[in-house]
């Protein structure tokens, strides 16, 4: 046996996930940006031209531009006011100091007001960026939580896990960047972004990729650099640069190894641009119903480049929406008093994936519909006065859901295996070949798939019992709808796997119990595939209904609803209706049975790459001399080990026998020497998964501490209520000084006297609050991570127990007549 450790896929996924980590973040200058904003806000230092224009135009609206002065003259006047040059201001404004200081202050106040509004929007956007970064599913952000979660899931998963998972997760794979995508292409993107004034708007604009713009030809638009308008503007140079990258991405599912499965997404390593800083380019390819969709887009590592609100110019004002007076100012003076956001840019439509367009966002709870395979959605309100929000029904199965000859047949579906090259490269099975699949002698059966005009009783697909040559024949009806070909083939392949290890002519549908078990198992697989395609969602059928309902139909010879309590009446019709509709949709590309036979690998890949894996799975995974290939994941390794153990126990004796010399001799005398099962796994208690508790917050204690601090600051003992500790503004009135003047001066300076403890309290409170908050978070996390650490500890114990397994040192003698010594020796050693 030769196994392939397919490190590449996951190493590359790690590479992608760590793409942002491998390179240091660019100089984000968070603090410097905030310092600049604060200086502008508090001191009007370094104010930009937009604010100056706004104040000039506001002055025009208020008729405050002196005669003989133009708007451009006023620019210097406003600048002088902002730079606190009062003398200069008055000289330039009207050459007189009469009422000039008031105008000077008014201009400054207008500037302060609009900066306040703009700063507020910037602050809110910054806070939103802080809270949303890493959790909204964008690619390439400084927190690689989504990528790492995906990596961990991929490290643990086996492809067969899907059969036991109630949710349909998008299948995502990472592969290296193709050579066709060159560095020069990214330089072109940098250049196109650099050329545009509002690069922040462009990054926002193309954050969902460029595919959404395919239907609308690009037209350059020039607009003010403001939030939402800038993000609506299109940059054709940038779009061309991104399209060049997109065109260089592979568009054939067979380019990938293993071939890209339907619904699977490939992401390529992110590219962090040198300029502008903090911007990344993402690339992805997706197999949507055998059609390859490619997309390229932009994103932020950390979105700090907020685009300000609009305060100048813009499109026509709608009086109905904005009001008559507002629109008068808007149209005549081209300003938007108080600033204004335009309508947000269009998100991708539902057909384009909506918010779920990006792969990581698609994994989020908003984008992942709940499937009701555990819990039926139809609630029967038994009590007229009760309100039932949800209800779990008892298990619907009336018969066993699977039967095996011996052992659990772990991972039998074999989606976890990668087909061998021989199987993939073989010629299409010809009509005269008898059971050509799989190749070699590693399987206990061979498979023969034929397309026929009619299978048994008009069925769309039928699997016959194994014949004397070990061949299992599958008949696919040519007249069956093309859309069901894949599901039928997968369904029949499960029956083939059920039959493979059984003796020839064994029937698996001969009793109600066997029929239901066989059909339920096969339906679990085929219904899962339908769910992944979205067919079940569209039909309004849960996986559970599909599994049980279709089993009832298959085993209808044994009565009504023999396998499941669920009604099967319309399940099949609903599913077939959706499949027929999909087949009739323009652009649908469902191959026929003959087309798949003629174009073996491409045809199967169009159907589903897992079909080849299922055929490969007929080979024993652990048969000596046979090759098994799979991706190196924890789940796949466990599948392999499990199959090896099962194969050993089922096809070999763990404790060997001996050649009996006499008729009465015992063939297996050493069975009694078997060491006691250590039951290691059974003795480990896994922690109960309980929601983490929020640590005690005790807000009252915290407030009391603050009250005490307030009293201390004012030199008073703790008082009740604490407000009594506040500075007494009437103190000077009740204890006046010797003369009125000093009393008045003392009274006037009381504000400063009060300011000092207030400032001290503010400084102290923030520091204390941060420490208390950090302490609360630490306590919360230590509790929240307890269940995880306990689980890891249990896993560690199991691995240690495996490591400590002691094997006997001596082998069993071939022809022993006495009880051998090794028996007691091995017992004692155990």
């Amino acid at each position, binding site marked *: 046996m030769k*196994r392939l450790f397919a490190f590449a896929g996951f190493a590359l996924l790690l590479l992608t996930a760590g793409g942002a980590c491998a390179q240091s973040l660019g100089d984000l200058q968070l603090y410097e940006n*905030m310092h600049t904003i604060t200086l502008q806000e*508090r001191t009007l230092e370094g104010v930009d031209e937009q604010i100056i224009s706004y104040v000039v135009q506001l002055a025009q609206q208020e008729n405050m531009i002196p005669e003989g002065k133009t708007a451009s003259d006023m620019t210097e006047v406003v600048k002088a006011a902002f730079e606190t040059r009062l003398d200069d201001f008055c000289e330039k404004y009207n050459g007189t100091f009469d009422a000039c200081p008031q105008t000077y202050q008014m201009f400054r106040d207008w500037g302060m007001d609009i900066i306040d509004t703009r700063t507020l929007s910037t602050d809110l956007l910054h806070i939103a960026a802080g809270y949303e970064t890493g959790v909204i599913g964008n690619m390439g952000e400084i927190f690689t939580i989504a990528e790492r979660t995906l990596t*961990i899931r991929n490290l643990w998963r086996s492809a067969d896990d899907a059969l036991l998972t109630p949710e349909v997760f998008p299948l995502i794979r990472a592969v290296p960047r193709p050579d066709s995508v060159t560095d020069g292409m990214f330089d072109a993107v940098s250049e196109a972004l650099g050329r545009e004034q509002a690069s922040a708007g462009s990054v926002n604009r193309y954050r969902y990729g460029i595919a959404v713009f395919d239907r609308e030809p690009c037209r350059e638009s020039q607009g003010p650099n403001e939030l939402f308008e800038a993000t609506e503007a299109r940059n054709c140079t940038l779009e061309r640069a991104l399209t060049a990258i997109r065109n260089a991405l592979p568009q054939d599912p067979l380019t990938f190894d293993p071939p890209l499965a339907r619904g699977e997404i490939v992401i390529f390593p992110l590219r962090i641009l040198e300029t502008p800083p903090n911007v990344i380019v993402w690339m992805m390819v997706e197999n949507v119903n055998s059609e390859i969709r490619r997309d390229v887009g932009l994103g932020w590592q950390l979105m700090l480049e907020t685009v300000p609100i609009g305060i100048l110019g813009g499109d026509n004002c709608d009086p109905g929406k904005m009001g008559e007076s507002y629109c008068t100012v808007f149209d005549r003076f081209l300003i938007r008093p108080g600033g204004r956001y335009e309508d947000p840019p269009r998100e991708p439509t539902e057909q384009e994936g909506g918010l779920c367009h990006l792969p990581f966002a698609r994994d989020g709870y908003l984008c992942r519909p709940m499937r009701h395979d555990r819990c039926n959605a139809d609630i029967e309100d038994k009590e007229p006065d009760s309100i039932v929000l949800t209800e779990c029904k008892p298990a619907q199965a009336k018969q066993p859901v699977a039967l095996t000859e011996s052992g659990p047949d772990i991972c039998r579906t074999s989606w976890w295996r990668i087909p061998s090259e021989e199987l993939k490269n073989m010629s299409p099975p010809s009509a005269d070949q008898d059971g050509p699949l799989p190749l070699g002698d590693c399987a206990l059966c061979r498979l023969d798939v034929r397309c026929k005009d009619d299978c048994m009783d008009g069925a769309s697909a039928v699997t016959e019992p194994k014949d004397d040559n070990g061949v299992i024949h599958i008949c696919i009806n040519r007249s069956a709808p093309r859309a069901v070909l894949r599901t039928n083939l997968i369904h029949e392949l499960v029956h083939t796997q059920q039959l493979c290890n059984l003796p020839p002519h064994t029937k698996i549908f001969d009793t109600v119990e066997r029929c239901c078990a066989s059909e339920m198992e096969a339906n679990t697989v085929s219904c899962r595939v339908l769910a992944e395609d979205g067919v079940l969602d569209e039909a309004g059928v849960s996986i559970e209904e599909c599994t049980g309902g279709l089993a009832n139909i298959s085993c209808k010879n044994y009565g009504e609803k023999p396998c499941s309590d669920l009604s099967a009446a319309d399940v099949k019709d609903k599913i077939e209706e959706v499949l027929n509709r999909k087949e009739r949709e323009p652009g649908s590309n469902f191959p026929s049975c003959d087309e798949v036979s003629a174009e073996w690998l491409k045809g199967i890949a169009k159907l589903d790459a897992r079909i080849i894996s299922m055929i490969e799975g007929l080979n024993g995974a652990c048969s000596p001399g046979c090759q098994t290939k799979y991706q*190196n994941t*924890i789940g796949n390794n466990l599948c*392999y080990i499990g199959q*090896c153990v099962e194969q050993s126990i089922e096809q070999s004796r763990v404790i060997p026998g001996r050649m009996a010399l006499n008729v009465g001799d015992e063939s297996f005398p050493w069975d009694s020497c078997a060491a006691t099962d250590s039951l290691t796994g059974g003795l480990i208690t896994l922690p109960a998964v309980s929601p983490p508790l929020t640590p005690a917050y005790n807000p009252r204690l915290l407030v009391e501490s603050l009250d005490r601090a307030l009293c201390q600051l004012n030199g008073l003992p703790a008082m009740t209520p604490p407000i009594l500790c506040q500075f007494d503004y009437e103190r000077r009135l009740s204890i006046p000084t010797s003369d009125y003047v000093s009393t008045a001066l003392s009274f006037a300076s009381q504000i400063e006297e009060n300011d000092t403890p207030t400032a001290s309290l503010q400084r102290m409170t923030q520091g204390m609050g941060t420490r208390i908050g950090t302490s609360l978070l630490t306590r919360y996390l230590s509790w929240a991570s307890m269940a995880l650490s306990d689980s890891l500890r249990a896993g560690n114990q199991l691995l240690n127990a*495996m490591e400590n397994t002691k094997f006997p040192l001596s082998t069993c003698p071939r022809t022993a007549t006495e009880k051998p010594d090794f028996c007691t020796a091995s017992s004692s050693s155990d």
Partner: protein
Amino acid sequence: MISRNARIVGLIVFLLLAALCAGIVANSKKLTATSVSLLMKREAENSILTPCSRFTESYMQLPFGDTNFARWPKLYHETAAAVIEEHLQSFSRAPQCAAATGNDVLPGGPKLQELSKKLPSWKSTSVSQWEMSSVLLEYLRAYECALEERLYFLHPDAMKELESKLEAKGESTDILLGGLIAEVAEEDRIIAQELVTARPTLNRSLAVLAGLSRLLPLHTELQCIERASIDIRNALALGAEAGSCLPRIWNAKDPLRDLPQ
């Protein structure tokens, strides 16, 4: 002749002095380095409630000296900016997954460590990257204290500053009133501006970082889980390698079964 009252007062004063001396002698052992270190320890434990004068032992290592006032804002903002930039870079720093305590999983970066050692709360303890906000807020408090203190003693301090400036230029250190007034006005303007802008600047920065930092523990844990998962996968891959021999092991030991050719 001394009156009786005066004698009584003299006696009382004498007794009080004697008692005071006796008290000092009796308690002389307590005024040792140990008691000073105890006081400092208590101050370090409750540093948030201590006065934060730049002349106290705890805050003397901060760069706010007597004669470098012109550089105070630059020194403060550069340090704060460097610590924040380092914090952002720490998101891509590999955690110490084998650390014994949560704080050691992501120890503070060099800039944070350097700053925290100058502040009483962290003088004798290590700092974790989680504590960045607390360190910066404490640094800001110390900066504001220094500014307030400077404002309180503005004229003498401005004179010292001016002298040092003239000395640095190699000019006479005789201070003219006009020069002093200009220096005082400039320092007053800087102090007012810094007192108005330093805290909102840090608050804005921390508002962004607070949102990000809440994910930092999760981000760190995921990195450790990922590495542990790779270890488990590799261990199981070795197990699978060994498992591939299972049927052959039994076949070889079983005399009743022929090996496949």
